[in-house]
C-alpha cells in the first residue's frame, strides 16, 4: 500500500448560527491514517475530536481543507457519498441508543446490506452475510441471536451487534467514537480486544475517538492529542504516552487515576470556548509551563501569548505544537 488510507489536510470546520459567534470546532488539522492502523484521537470534551470524526464520515462539510480517502477526495454529493459511506463505518458510544428497540438483531444487521444492495452484488445470501458479520463480532453461534431484541441482550452484546452492523458492509475504515465508555469495566476489555482482532483478521483500519488514555494505550498504534480544534501532539502510543512532550498531554496523563506516581497537574477551568480561540498558543491560558516558570526560563512567554504555532506535520514522527524548546527534540 502506498500512501495513507485517510489523508486530512488543513481541515477547518466552523459552525455558525444567525446572531451567534462562529465556533471553529476544527481549526487546521493534518492527519494521516495508514491502512491496518489503529489511530486514537484523544482530548477533552469540546476539543473538536467528534467533529473531526463526523467530517471524516461525511456528516459535516469542511469549511476549508481536504479529506482524501484511498487517494480520492471525499465526495460532496449525496449520490457520491453513498459508496463512501459503505467503506467507512461508524460505531457510537451508546449501543442502546444506536439500535432500534423494535428491530431484531437480524433486521438491524441486514438493514445496511439492503440499503447498499449488498445482496444482489454478492453470491452470498443475506442470511449468510448477516451470520458472517455476527460471527466476526463475536456473537456465536449467530443463528441464536437472529431473532433476539436489543432488550434481551447485555450491554456488551448490544455493542457487538452495532459492530456487526458495521462489519456486514465490509468497510475499510471503522470510526469508533468512545466505543466502550458506556460499558461496564469487565466488558470493556472484550470489546477493545474485538477491535484489535478485526484489524488482524479483516485488515480493518480503526480511528478511535476517546478521552480515555488507558484505552489508547491498550489498542492504538498512534495517538493524536487534540486541543481546541488543533492537534497538539502526535506520535506512536509509546512516544506520546511514555515521553509526552506537550504540557497539555503531560497534564492529561498526570490526572489519569491509574498514574499514582505522577504528581497530578489538574488544569484549572473548563476547556475554553471554540468561539473565542485565544491568540498565540491556544493552550496558553491554562498552560502549566507558563505557571511553573518553564516558559519564563526559556524566554518564550511572549511567543506563547502572541505568536501562533504552525500546524504540526504528522508525517514527521513524534511532533508537538509548543514553543518550549525541549518539545522539539528529534
Amino acid at each position, binding site marked *: 500500500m502506498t500512501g495513507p488510507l485517510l489523508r486530512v489536510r488543513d481541515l477547518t470546520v466552523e459552525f455558525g448560527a444567525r446572531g451567534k459567534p462562529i465556533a471553529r470546532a476544527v481549526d487546521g488539522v493534518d492527519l494521516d491514517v495508514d491502512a491496518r492502523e489503529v489511530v486514537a484521537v484523544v482530548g477533552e470534551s469540546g476539543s473538536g475530536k467528534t467533529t473531526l470524526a463526523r467530517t471524516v464520515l461525511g456528516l459535516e462539510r469542511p469549511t476549508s481543507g481536504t479529506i482524501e480517502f484511498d487517494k480520492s477526495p471525499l465526495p460532496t454529493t449525496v449520490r457520491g457519498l453513498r459508496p463512501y459511506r459503505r467503506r467507512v463505518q461508524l460505531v457510537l458510544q451508546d449501543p442502546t441508543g444506536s439500535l432500534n428497540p423494535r428491530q431484531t438483531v437480524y433486521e438491524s444487521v441486514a438493514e445496511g446490506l439492503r440499503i447498499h444492495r449488498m445482496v444482489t452484488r454478492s453470491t452470498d445470501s443475506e442470511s449468510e452475510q448477516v451470520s458472517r458479520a455476527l460471527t466476526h463480532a463475536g456473537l456465536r453461534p449467530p443463528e441464536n441471536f437472529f431473532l433476539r431484541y436489543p432488550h434481551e441482550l447485555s450491554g456488551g452484546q448490544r455493542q457487538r451487534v452495532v459492530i456487526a452492523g458495521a462489519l456486514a458492509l465490509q468497510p475499510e475504515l471503522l470510526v469508533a467514537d468512545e466505543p466502550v465508555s458506556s460499558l461496564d469495566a469487565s466488558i470493556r476489555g*472484550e470489546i477493545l480486544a474485538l477491535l484489535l482482532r478485526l484489524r488482524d483478521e479483516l485488515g480493518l483500519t480503526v480511528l478511535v475517538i476517546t478521552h480515555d488514555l488507558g484505552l489508547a494505550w491498550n489498542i492504538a498504534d498512534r495517538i493524536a492529542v487534540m486541543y481546541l480544534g488543533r492537534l497538539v501532539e502526535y506520535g506512536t502510543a509509546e512516544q506520546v504516552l511514555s515521553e509526552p512532550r506537550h504540557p497539555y498531554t503531560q497534564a492529561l496523563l498526570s490526572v489519569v487515576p491509574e498514574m499514582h506516581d505522577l504528581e*497530578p497537574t489538574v488544569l484549572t477551568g473548563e476547556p475554553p470556548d471554540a468561539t473565542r480561540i485565544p491568540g498565540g498558543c491556544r493552550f496558553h491560558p491554562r498552560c502549566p509551563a507558563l505557571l511553573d516558570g518553564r516558559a519564563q526560563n526559556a524566554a518564550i512567554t511572549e511567543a506563547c501569548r502572541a505568536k501562533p504555532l504552525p500546524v504540526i506535520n504528522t508525517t514527521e514522527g513524534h511532533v508537538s505544537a509548543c514553543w518550549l524548546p525541549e518539545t522539539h527534540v528529534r
Partner: protein
Amino acid sequence: MSETTSDPTAPVASPAPASDFVKSEKPREPLLEIEGLEVSYRTASGDIPAVRGVDLTVHTGESVGLAGESGCGKSTLASTILRLEPSNATVRGGIRVCGKDVRTLGWSDLRALRWGQAAMVFQGALHSLNPVQRIGDQIAEPIRIHDSTPAKGIPARVRELLNQVGLPSDRAQAFPHQLSGGQRQRVMIAMALACRPELIVADEPTTALDVMVQAQVLALLTGLVEELGLGLLMITHDLSVLGSTCSRIAVMYAGRVVEEGPADEVFEQPQHPYSAALSAAFPRIGDPAARYAPAGLPGDPPNPQELPSGCTFHPRCPVALARCSEYDPPIRMAEPNRPVACVLVGEDGRDRSAAQSS
C-alpha cells in the same frame, strides 16, 4: 435487625425524639454502619435479590469506595442508606447513620436526617437539576426547608457554598444549561453540602465527565472530606478512580461484597479474581504487558433472578476450580483486615473449603 418496607408512612417502631438530632461530638462511632443488609425486589415474576448480606462501615474523615458493575446491587445499597429505595423493595438488616437506625426512624426524623446528616450526590447532574430554576435557588431550597439558617442569611450561605466547590458566586444566577458538565456536578456537590451533613454518598459522581473534569471533581471531593471532616461513600465501576481517592475499597459482585481492604492494596494487589479483573480493566499506562492486550472478562454480570450456583462468579472466573460451582465461599480474612470471599484465599482456605464442599 428490623424489617421494614420503604413506605414512608409505615408505622414507626421506635421514634427517636427530635432533640437527638443535635450534632454530637461522639468520637469512634461510625457515621455509617451497615450490618447484614439484604434487599430484594418483589416483582410479578418473583422476588429478585439485589443485595445479599453486606456489612460496611464508614467513619468520620474516611472515604470508602464501593466498586461493582451494573446490576451488582451497589446503587440499591446506596438508596437504602437514606431509605430512598423503591416501594417494592424489602429490606432486612441494620443501617445506622450517625447512630440512628434508618429503618425504624420516624418520618420527620428521617426528613431531618436526609440533607442534615447525610446527603447524596447522584450521577447525571443534568437530570437531577431543575432546568427552569436558577442554580442559586436550587441550592437554597434544602437550606430553607431543612436548615436553621435564617432566611436573611441564605443568599450569603449559597455564595459560601458556591465558593466552597470552586464556582464564582455570580453563577447563582445561572440556569443549569448555561453550565458545563463539571460545573453542574459542582452544583450537585454544593447542594449536598448545603445543610452541613456529616456523611456524603456519591453514586457515580464522575461517570459522564471527561478526564480533566473528573480529576477536578475528585480533587474537590477529597479536599472537602479532609477540610470538613466528612465521611464519604463513593460508588462507581471504575476501580482506578476509587484507588486514587478512597482510603478503603469494597468490591461488590452479585449483591455481595467479595473483597474489602485498603484502597491501594485492593487496586494494586487484588486477591479476588473479580477485583483483579476490574483492576486490570483500567491499564497502567506505560506497562508493556497492557499494550495490545486489553484485559476483560468473558461473559456478562449475572442476572440477579438466575444467580449461578455455588460461587456466583464461577462461570466467568479465570481460575475457577471444579468445586466452585457447588460451594459458595464465605468471607475469610486473607490478611488481617482484608476480608475476601474466594476458595483460593485465606490461610486455611484450601483445606477448609475442600472439607466443606465434600
